[in-house]
């Protein structure tokens, strides 16, 4: 084995995950080549140093309401997708039924409308889960989970404080500033 090839296997050699033959070849190379041995040791130090990043922790409590937030975002995404399709369908419907529209355009519009209706049906059918039986907008608009309610209550309390403090503290309480930053908060209140 060449030193170049051996270098590519340093990490696996260190972990002992190489087959016996390859590991043996690398061991012989390292014993006979002090420069390569120094490179091998340096490679190990780099791996160990970078590995210290695993001790980094997310801010305390930031992932506590993660699942509740996930479902809120999911409902919002489903409601948005449904809304876009519905609006487009209504516009097409109006266009097709307009008395000023030519026959050819009417036919094209009708085909597009059929496609949209089909997509809407497909979208509804593909939404697995509890939101199937109720309006997705209604589902998105109200908190469903105890954690949702707690998060909303926390937001209301913080909203009464000054803006600077609230915007700093919110991520730690809600677990994230994302939805507020991206305008999701309009559905919470």
């Amino acid at each position, binding site marked *: 084995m060449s030193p170049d090839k051996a270098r590519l296997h*340093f990490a696996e050699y260190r972990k002992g995950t190489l087959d016996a033959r390859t590991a043996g070849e690398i061991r012989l190379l390292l014993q006979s080549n002090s420069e390569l041995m120094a490179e091998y040791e340096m490679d190990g130090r780099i791996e*160990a140093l*970078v590995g210290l*990043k*695993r*001790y*980094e922790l997310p801010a305390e409590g*930031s992932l506590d309401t993660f699942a509740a937030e996930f479902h809120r975002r999911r409902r919002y*995404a489903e409601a948005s997708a449904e809304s876009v399709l519905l609006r487009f369908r209504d516009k097409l419907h109006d266009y097709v039924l307009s008395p000023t529209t030519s026959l050819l355009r009417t036919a094209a519009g009708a085909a597009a409308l059929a496609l949209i209706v089909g997509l809407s049906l497909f979208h509804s059918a593909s939404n*697995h889960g509890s939101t199937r039986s109720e309006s997705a907008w209604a589902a998105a608009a109200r908190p469903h989970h105890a954690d949702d309610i707690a998060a909303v209550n926390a937001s209301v309390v913080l909203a009464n404080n000054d803006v600077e403090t609230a915007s700093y503290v919110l991520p730690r309480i809600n677990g994230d500033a994302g939805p507020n930053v991206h305008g999701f908060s309009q559905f919470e209140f």
Partner: protein
Amino acid sequence: MAGEKDKERPEQDPPDSLFIEQTLAGDDSAFDRLIERYKNRLYSVIYHIVNHHEDAYDLTQEAFLRAYKSLKSYQGKANFYTWLYRIAVNHALNFKKRRKDALSISLNEFDQNIEKDRAFKELVVNEKASKTLLLSELQEKLNDSLDKLSEEHRAVVVLHDVEGLPHGEIAKIVGCSEGTVRSRLHYAHLQLKSLLANYLKQK
């Protein structure tokens, strides 16, 4: 469907496949179990790629959302965690590519167990500096150095050196051969050698 990660859990923990089937049958609380099981690890890997709290949180949410939407297409060929990792890493890498110019870093707290780590004692501890200063300097230097790597090299370094995944699993996650993973890891280490030179000197 139950892969290596399933084996790591205690016997009484149900396999991922059960929760996947229940989710597909309409039980959202089953997906919550998958979220609880993997949210910390997924957040961790995304955070180490993007280096920002709020971005990591949003990207983790979005990764789970993508997984939820495409759960039907999951065929169980790879274990669920590898599949989820793949979605998350690709999403984080695309985010990094889009936001290349807008570099911002927010730092996490360190777990106190770092003080017991041999690498920390050998490579970082300096009797003259305070622990807090050492940790913040280390974090800044590590994040800064990793940020200088290309997205592809950084992903391999994070998955291997930080997350401790084997080459085979990394190859499946990033969608390349094991040879490419070896090569990327080697060249990333060469680059990090000069970037982290102050910490790598023999003490």
